């Protein structure tokens, strides 16, 4: 059957589509018959099918794990609670007997989906319910029985959170299962041996139920959970918060209302209505229906007495100091930002703004739903002095796409309120009319948020590995009142939400102004923006495709005015060795870069032969040999991911002798005119990126010299061809 002629082999793409239809449960009988026919006769199809279906199994396991851990705990503990009511307090033998074999087949499957991977204890819990399975050994039973007196952690009282880890040896007291920690101390540190650090903010009461579980009856705690302790759980009167690898905070008030905030990672949350007084006295097990929800980074949820989940609009970080961190010291005069809220509903988002008092400093977290950080643009000058130590709000980066959002900042004192706006955005009307541009910029350091930005890494301190710059706008508010901020214009992906900082007005007025140049990015730094550049002579159009033939702006050509066959050469401008092309790229004598205009195109997404590239900044020029009026400049780049992005400026000079090329500011670009600004970062990464600079019928220039200034990137553009067209010579664009 495997010896069918080649033309019987199904097309891979068609087979993938068929398998996807089957996986989605949408296949008709005819399609299943077709698939079976293919698989009977074709070995390659069987291999592809095995790979595809194995992938389905992995995806099913992965995506069910997160949601189902919450369900697992709910189901297991409902049984446990019922057993407790029937048999008295926790008996490890009886809980071992109450295995999942009493559950529905679906739930048993669930145990196998997640339970086996959870921990050894749980595995025994599962196995020993089977009559045919071996019973636990005496040693195992004894181990469980002795758990009640087993030390599971260490307690340290009255030590500042940042010093607590160092104080463990000196001040520690053992904590055992069954212990209840009731404290009025401001800070109590509890370390669970499984790998969980907990800070308890008194007055609070916490009972240790097991090595991996504790009950918080009142007060606030924060937890940092190591990978070894995923599955660690905090119970409150109406909620169960199960860690899935995270930093989180839980707060319980006197009425049992529970607030949960996730600072990093995610937690599974199960919650229900509190029992009434009658129900609490009843000896009959009563199980109110529970709900489950996954909370991710930046999410916060309040569970009311009625068991209803409500969005928490804002939290104050100083209420939730994390283990090992230095708590913010509030000024005597009190905070500047009292509160922040928006016009979104629980349906729109479950994220909470975080107010950080006195927290605006280098590497301060920028958004609740990203690990981005604020930093000064310049390593030498850092953040502008006026901003340092200010109160600030961590908003949701995803709010950038909320077109009707209104964020209200309630100021407690006379203040200078700052808005930090992504420089890639146009300036919204509400900002332009009410606020003033300081001229300062600040940077954002981004982590590898997604595959589109998978190469990014967080750096430390100012001026290090910054990806974005934001302009700093301010308004003085002498009479404290709520200030309403609007939406971005237009709301857009691939940009960031604005930041909000406030400082006491008297401090802002007494802070000496700094030269704005100290806080503005340089040309070539990777952060340059239109606000720091003159108006360019051209408009820029950009495009992305997977094949050259897809491009609406036309194919690259070896017959353009700037082609090597016309005797024109691109030369790398090394600035005395400061800016060197990548050692693997071809550079000829005289720093000639032939790949840029030889008409030979990259024929793969990783073509090292037909591309010219840098790591970091780069500059190169071309001498047109005579002053020439241009029609357009097209630039093509090809890479399978990040090196396809184009981010550069093009400059032109009419002088016979090329002016200096080592300028860092627009004012310093003596003898040069800005022709165009190219940035393709709004396109998806990978494939073919293309840009064209043009200025209509009058053309561009005339220019004798052209200069490209590539903005800094760790992994800079794979440039495969640059086509320069004299006025009237550019080929017509293909018809759509």
């Amino acid at each position, binding site marked *: 059957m495997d010896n069918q002629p080649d033309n019987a082999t199904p097309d891979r793409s068609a087979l993938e589509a068929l398998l996807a239809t089957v996986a989605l449960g949408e296949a008709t009988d005819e399609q299943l018959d077709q698939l079976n026919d293919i698989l009977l006769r074709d070995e390659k199809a069987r291999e592809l099918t095995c790979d595809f279906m194995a992938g389905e199994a992995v995806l099913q396991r992965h995506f069910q794990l997160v949601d189902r851990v919450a369900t697992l705990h709910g189901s297991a503990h409902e049984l446990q609670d019922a057993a407790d009511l029937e048999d008295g307090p926790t008996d490890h033998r009886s809980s071992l007997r109450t295995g999942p074999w009493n559950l529905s087949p679906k739930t048993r499957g669930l145990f196998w*989906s997640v339970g086996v991977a959870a921990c050894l204890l749980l595995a025994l819990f599962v196995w020993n319910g089977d009559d045919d399975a071996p019973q636990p050994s005496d040693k195992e039973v004894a181990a469980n029985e002795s758990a009640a007196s087993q030390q599971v952690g260490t307690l340290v009282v009255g030590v500042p959170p940042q010093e607590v880890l160092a104080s463990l040896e000196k001040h520690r007291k053992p904590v055992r299962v069954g212990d209840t920690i009731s404290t009025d101390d401001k800070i109590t540190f509890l370390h669970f041996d499984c790998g969980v650090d907990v800070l308890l903010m008194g007055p609070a009461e916490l009972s240790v139920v097991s090595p991996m579980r504790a009950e918080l009856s009142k007060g606030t705690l924060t937890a940092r959970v190591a990978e070894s302790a995923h599955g660690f759980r905090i119970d409150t009167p109406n909620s169960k918060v199960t860690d899935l690898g995270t930093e989180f905070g839980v707060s319980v008030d006197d009425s049992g209302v529970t607030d949960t905030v996730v600072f990093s990672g995610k937690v599974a949350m199960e919650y229900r209505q509190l029992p009434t007084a009658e129900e609490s006295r009843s000896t009959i097990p009563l199980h109110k229906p529970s709900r489950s929800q996954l909370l991710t980074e930046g999410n916060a949820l309040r569970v009311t007495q009625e068991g209803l989940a409500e969005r928490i609009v804002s939290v104050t970080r100083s209420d939730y100091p994390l283990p090992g961190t230095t708590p913010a010291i509030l000024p005597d005069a009190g905070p500047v930002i009292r509160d922040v809220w928006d016009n979104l509903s629980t349906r729109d988002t479950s994220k909470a703004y975080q107010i950080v008092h006195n927290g605006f400093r280098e590497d301060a977290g920028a958004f609740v739903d990203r690990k981005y950080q604020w930093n000064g643009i310049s390593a030498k000058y850092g953040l502008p002095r006026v901003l340092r130590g200010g109160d600030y709000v961590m908003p949701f980066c995803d709010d950038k796409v909320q077109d009707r959002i209104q964020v209200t900042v309630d100021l407690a004192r006379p203040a200078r309120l700052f808005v930090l706006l992504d420089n890639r955005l146009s300036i919204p009307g509400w900002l332009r009319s009410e606020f003033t541009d300081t001229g300062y910029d600040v940077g954002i350091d981004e982590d590898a948020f997604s595959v589109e930005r998978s190469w990014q890494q967080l750096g430390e301190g100012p001026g290090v590995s910054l990806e974005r710059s934001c302009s700093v706008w301010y308004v003085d508010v002498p009479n404290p009142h709520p200030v309403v901020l609007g939406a971005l214009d237009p709301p857009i992906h691939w940009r960031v939400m604005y930041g909000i900082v406030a400082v006491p007005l008297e401090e802002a007025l007494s802070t000496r102004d700094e030269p704005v140049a100290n806080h503005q990015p340089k040309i070539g730094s990777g952060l340059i923006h239109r606000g720091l550049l003159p108006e360019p002579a051209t408009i820029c159009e950009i495009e992305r495709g997977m094949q050259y033939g897809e491009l609406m702006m036309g194919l690259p050509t070896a017959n353009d005015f700037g082609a090597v066959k016309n005797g024109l050469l691109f030369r790398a401008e090394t600035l005395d060795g400061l800016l060197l092309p990548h050692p693997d790229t071809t550079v000829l004598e005289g720093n000639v870069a032939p790949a840029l205009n030889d008409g030979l195109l990259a024929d793969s997404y990783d073509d090292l032969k037909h591309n010219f590239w840098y790591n970091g900044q780069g500059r190169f020029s071309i001498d047109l040999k005579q002053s020439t009026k241009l029609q357009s400049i097209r630039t093509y780049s090809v890479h399978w991911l990040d090196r396809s992005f184009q981010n550069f400026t093009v400059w032109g000079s009419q002088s016979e002798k090329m002016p200096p090329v080592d300028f860092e500011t627009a004012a310093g670009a003596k003898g040069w005119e800005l022709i165009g600004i190219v940035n393709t970062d709004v396109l998806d990464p990978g494939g073919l990126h293309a840009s064209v600079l043009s200025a209509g019928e009058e053309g561009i220039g005339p220019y004798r010299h052209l200069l490209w200034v590539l903005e800094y990137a760790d992994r800079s553009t794979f440039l495969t061809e640059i086509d320069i067209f004299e006025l009237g010579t550019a080929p017509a664009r293909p018809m759509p």
Partner: protein
Amino acid sequence: MGIPNQASYAESSLDGCGTEQMDDKQISDAGGGGNESVDVFIRLLTDHQVDLQAFIMSSLGNHPDTLDVLQATNIALWKKATVFDSKAPFLPWAIGVAKYEVLAFMRKRRRDRHTFSPEVVELLMDVAAQRTPETSCRSRALMECIKELPERNREFLQIRYAQQQSVQQVATKTGRTVDAVKSLFLRIRRALEHCIDRRLAIDDQL
């Protein structure tokens, strides 16, 4: 000539893929008699749940059936724990048991319509058993590739898999048409396959 800055990709490439045999042996070496053997067995069974589920899913092509057979396989493996030679590799032995459970399932449900015909199931089982080491590597690569997915695509898969929603339900929930959901699902799966191949290719180069 290599890809510039390849190290940044190598850091996130597969770790330990292809060392399954050694891991098993290490576990075997650590295991003694009595309760330690139980611990070792549970550890092996736990570590290979993904491989077993992938093998069964490859053979049956249906998720609910796969869970049923996986459960039966786990029970069977546990019952055979005492005859397991801890010096031998665990996975081939476990796959052998799983094969038997797949066949038993097909016999028991012979009157039902399945994704694959009994003949095709047998053929697929052979391929899946032969490809177990490769599938194991692909599974690990896939776990890394999931992390690389854009958040919106991960959310889409979360709705699809975690909540076991039908295509129609996913379409309603995400504001797309049914055809758009199908198309997006296929695009994501292809992107993941491409990512797996890329990661494995990089791993081969290292």
